[in-house]
């Protein structure tokens, strides 16, 4: 068993990617000014539940600096609060680039906030790691942009393909789709409808509802009237709770084989513990769960340090969905810098296009517009949840991975009503 300190060093070395030669040469550059990494984070406003990502950035920065930084230069992280508003994004990135002279940029969270910065980085030819924006670079097609999230290519359409793969295996013929009228869920639902069509399924009901809808009884009745084999839902935390509750109140046909898809909320500790056993049977997307096929010492070490900080800051105590990929963003930047031995955007991008990088979320390689070459969005089924204790979600078997096959830890339990009963 290694000591904590050894582990720390090991982690940092991994973080720095090909750090060894850089550290050897570090003395020559020791007097250099720090490498600046700039990001906009939503500390306030409707997206402030994503602010725990900042812990990921900071852990990465500390790990890198603990082993002497990159190319012998310390790493300095500069972040501003965009208040979850796209209107603030242009000025913030101009500040990061034109005033703070950052060498590497991380995008704001999600496609809505990232869209304003895409023309800017393309026009200035800057290097950027994208944070959780679905199909973020599909329009701009900037060759120095890389996603930290495992969305994979054609993410606008294929993001939730795993759900429909599972549905097809169950012989699903008819699908109902509902989504919140917000960017992420709307795109996920649109992509879902296309994939369903491609698989020869009939979309018998397809409706969007406004954010802040608190009563889903009429929608659920309409879904029941359409009598589908599968129900695909793209929702945000408030509606996810209301939908799960609504299903319990109104009931749903025994015919439904698979239920869920793209509900934001049941990845976060607060919602998992407040709904508890009501979540049993739900099939939902995720980015990381503590199942044996994903658990590595590296990521475990990450969460060992994340959890106490998160508890202190009052943010999501589990932090499975977002924070690891903020750390990954740092690792990608570090790999690009040490690999190309420069902070030149073209050289960094060239390195990431040509090499596979080891991250705490596994190895990653990129296509020409910076998508992960392979989609690695998880479809997990919530099972065996008893009571409202949060700690149960830290152990394997509660969030069983059904897809992708390479990480699979169990088979779909169905139909939904049976799985729901536990």
């Amino acid at each position, binding site marked *: 068993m290694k000591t904590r300190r050894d582990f720390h060093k090991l982690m940092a070395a991994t973080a720095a990617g090909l750090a060894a030669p850089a550290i050897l040469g570090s003395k020559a550059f020791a007097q250099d000014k720090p490498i600046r990494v700039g990001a906009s984070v939503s*500390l*306030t406003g*409707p997206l402030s539940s994503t602010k725990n990502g900042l812990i990921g950035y900071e852990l990465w920065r500390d790990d890198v600096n603990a082993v002497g930084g990159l190319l012998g230069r310390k790493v300095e992280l500069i972040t*501003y*609060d*965009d*208040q979850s*508003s*796209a*209107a*603030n*994004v*242009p*000025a*913030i990135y*101009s*500040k990061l680039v*034109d*005033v703070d002279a950052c060498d590497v940029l991380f995008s704001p969270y999600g496609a*809505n906030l990232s*869209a*304003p910065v*895409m*023309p*800017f980085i393309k*026009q200035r030819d800057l290097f950027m790691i994208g944070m959780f924006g679905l199909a973020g670079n599909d*329009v701009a097609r900037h060759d120095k942009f890389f996603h930290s999230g495992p969305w994979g290519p054609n993410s606008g359409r294929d993001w939730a393909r795993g759900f429909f793969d599972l549905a097809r295996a169950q012989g699903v013929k008819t699908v109902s789709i509902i989504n*919140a*009228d*917000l*960017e992420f869920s*709307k*795109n996920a639902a649109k992509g879902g409808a296309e994939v369903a069509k491609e698989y020869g399924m009939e979309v018998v009901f397809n409706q*969007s509802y*406004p954010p802040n809808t608190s009563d889903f009884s009429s929608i659920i009745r309409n879904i029941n009237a359409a009598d589908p084999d599968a129900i695909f839902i793209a929702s945000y935390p408030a509606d996810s709770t209301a939908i799960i509750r609504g299903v319990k109140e109104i009931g749903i046909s025994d015919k439904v084989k698979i239920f869920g898809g793209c509900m934001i909320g049941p990845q976060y500790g607060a919602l998992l513990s407040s709904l508890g056993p009501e979540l049993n049977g739900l099939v939902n997307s995720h980015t990381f769960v503590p199942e044996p096929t994903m658990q590595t010492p590296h990521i475990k070490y990450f969460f060992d340090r994340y959890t106490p900080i998160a508890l202190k800051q009052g943010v999501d105590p589990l932090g499975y969905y977002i924070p690891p990929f903020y750390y990954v963003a740092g690792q990608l930047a570090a790999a690009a810098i040490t690999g190309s031995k420069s902070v030149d955007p073209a050289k960094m991008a060239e390195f990431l296009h040509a090499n596979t990088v080891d991250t705490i979320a596994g190895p990653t390689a990129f296509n020409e517009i910076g998508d992960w070459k392979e989609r690695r969005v998880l479809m997990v089924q919530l099972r065996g949840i008893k009571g409202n204790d949060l700690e149960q979600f830290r152990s394997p078997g509660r969030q069983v991975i059904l897809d992708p096959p390479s990480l699979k830890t169990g088979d779909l339990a169905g139909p939904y009503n049976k799985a729901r009963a536990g």
Partner: protein
Amino acid sequence: MTKNSILFLVGIAIVLVLGFLMPWVLKNPFYFFVGYVVLQYVTIATGWNILGGYAGYINFGAAGFFGAGVYLSAFLFTTLGLPLPLCILAAAIFGAVLGLLMGYLTLRIQGVYFAIATLGLVVVLETIVHNIPALGGASGMAVYGPRQPFWSPGPSQFNFTVMLIIAAAAVTLARFVEISWIGRGLRAVRASEDAAECSGVPTLRLKLLACALSGAVLAAAGAPYPFYTSYMEPVTAFSLIIGLNAIAMPLIGGTRSWVGPVLGALLLASVQQIATVTISSELNILFVGLVLIAFVAFAPGGLAELFGRKQRRARS
């Protein structure tokens, strides 16, 4: 033309010339990103004040007019390929029509109902945008703006100059309204609607005119926004912050004359922009709320009156 008017127009001309020259002198684009936002708020506050300040009719729906301008100009630019000045003009006309419509529906009764109806305007317009696929709905729409012309060094500088022209036009319009027969009539409406009506002031027509002008300026303020962010989506286009600032800035600056909103916007918008890259947090909105209460409570005339009082005292 009075001496004051000539001085005012010379001042506007100097500001405009500076607006064209500055991008070539000041090299860092950051200042133009920030300057754009500040000028956008100067326009919004000025437009709001034409109705809110001069006539005393409070509009909570500034974001509705602003968002309408954003969407109309982006739609005309991307689908019909209209040139930018026409997009701005069209947005202004659309804003005027919207203002007229709102006024016609609610102004016949009492100011309070107008205020309440404007609260809903934002909700209704946002709902409509959500349901029109051609406008991108909730997913928003990427907008690649026009290339900057030869006289501007870059896109952010170009947007800045465009916004400056709109702001200058808005302030000139507000000042014209203020010193003309329209302003006199509106002041009479504000002092006492019944008395004004009795002494032959065409109150309803004046109020409708103020609604239309105010709506036009607010929508014009939104017209270049999609080119500034290269992207638009309903949540930010109809953002509450816009409606909030539209009221707070004139109240802080002073609602009686065109100077007030300009002063209030320059001050509050700069503070907000600085706060965004320094301390930003919820405390920012808390600060605006407290400042609003403080001004309503202790300085209902705003900064302009505070300064004015001091000057008068100094003179006498």
